[in-house]
């Protein structure tokens, strides 16, 4: 019996003009798996993540998420994207709406819920990230950590099958990182499939099932966190891990 992957990316190439950012990347992720993607800046981690929900159009290759061919022109991409949550480095909350408004927008306009249903689901999602009492605050009235948690609530309210995290804590002050990681950990405990681009090595060690190291548009090596961190097979991985652990 062949193991069915929930995310199946094959042979992903991405060119930005003369830049060849992804040079044939294969990534398979199992259901309930938490995969950490690390690598130097410019290695193509974020681009790979953005190819998975087609925020970036791969130049070639195939992406299948939860059985849906994401690159098929016949695929209803807006429908498919509901199943793939994404959290951004800069939060990207809608500043003209309250926290509740941020979460209900897609519930109402994409998932077709009534205002009352959407409100209930959104409050539940805000509760899950520990911000039930901030529903009526606008992003400007929230700390960075709280904003990022609202952004997570905005995604999980749609009950996605996979969550993508693009450096979710990189823009945060150090003392605010913990609260976001805490939410990610609790999400992990519910069995959410997660792909995380991040340099939070402590979190990777504790929570990740697998660490993927990328460099120069390719996956150099991957394996359990202990193996990658303690005993990397490749010189480039060793150099990178040595560098970030010195900080």
């Amino acid at each position, binding site marked *: 019996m062949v193991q069915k992957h929930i995310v199946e990316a094959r042979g992903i190439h991405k060119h930005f003009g003369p830049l060849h950012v992804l040079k044939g990347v294969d990534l398979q992720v199992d259901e309930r798996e938490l995969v950490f993607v690390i690598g130097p800046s410019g290695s193509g981690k974020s681009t790979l993540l953005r190819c998975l929900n087609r925020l970036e159009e791969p130049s070639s290759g195939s992406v299948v998420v939860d059985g849906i061919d994401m690159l098929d022109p016949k695929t209803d991409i807006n429908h*498919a994207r509901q199943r793939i949550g994404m959290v951004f480095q800069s939060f*990207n909350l809608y500043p003209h709406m309250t926290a509740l408004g941020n979460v209900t927008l*897609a519930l109402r306009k994409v998932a077709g819920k009534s205002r009352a249903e959407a409100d209930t689901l959104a409050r539940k999602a805000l509760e899950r990230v520990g911000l039930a009492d901030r529903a009526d605050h606008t992003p400007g009235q929230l700390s960075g950590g709280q904003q990022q948690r609202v952004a997570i609530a*905005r995604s999980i309210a749609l009950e996605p099958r996979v969550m993508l995290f693009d450096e979710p804590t990189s823009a945060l002050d150090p003392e605010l990182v913990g609260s976001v990681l805490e939410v990610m950990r609790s999400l992990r405990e519910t069995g959410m499939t997660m792909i995380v681009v991040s340099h939070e090595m402590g979190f990777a060690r504790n929570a990740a099932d697998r660490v993927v190291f990328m460099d120069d548009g390719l996956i150099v090596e991957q394996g359990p966190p202990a193996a990658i961190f303690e005993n990397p097979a490749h010189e480039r991985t060793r150099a990178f891990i040595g560098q970030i652990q010195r900080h």
Partner: protein
Amino acid sequence: MIQTFFNLDIIVAAWPIVMSGLWNTILLSLIVVPLGLFGGLILALLASIRHPLVRWPLMAWVDFFRAFPPLVLLVLLFAGLPFAGLELGGFACVAIAFFLNTGSYYGEIFRAGIDSVPNGQVEAARSTGLSRMQAMRYVVLPQAVRNVLPDLLSNTLEVVKLTSLGSVVAVPELLYEARQAQSLTYNPTPIVMAAVIYFLILWPLVRLLSRLENRALAGRR
């Protein structure tokens, strides 16, 4: 002096005609401002498509009508179109000229507003499944309009002032009616009345604009 410029008898005599002019100026503004806003919004939305086949004609259109003096455009429509067998009347000509001219200005303002919204906003919206149009409508446009509100208001002030151009094609708006009254009474008092009325209706808008601009500056700090 006062007998010449603020003649009470003449004020009383000219009052009805000047008031009817004021009413027409208000009516004209209520038509041409929404029309310009609507045209501008359409232009800005088309510009956001960024396809060369849309972009170049659009740029040519906007450049042309911004470079074209609105008075000349108006006279051309009013005096030129009848030779093409199309007699539109002053009011319709003003509406069309303003749609073309002020629509292009409003369009550039909306476009700047749309450009001022970070792309991450669209990405976040699209990642939750919103379509391009939904992202524009619910996420980008509300922020865009808020960001350029002072410019929109400032342009609207200009548009209301420009409605006095209607007098050239015999639209009985404030300036036209004041001049009528002037020629009937052989006294400039009606023109002074019109000037005072223009000031009285525009001054609150100017105050509001200053406040918006100050608030925008404070917000940027």
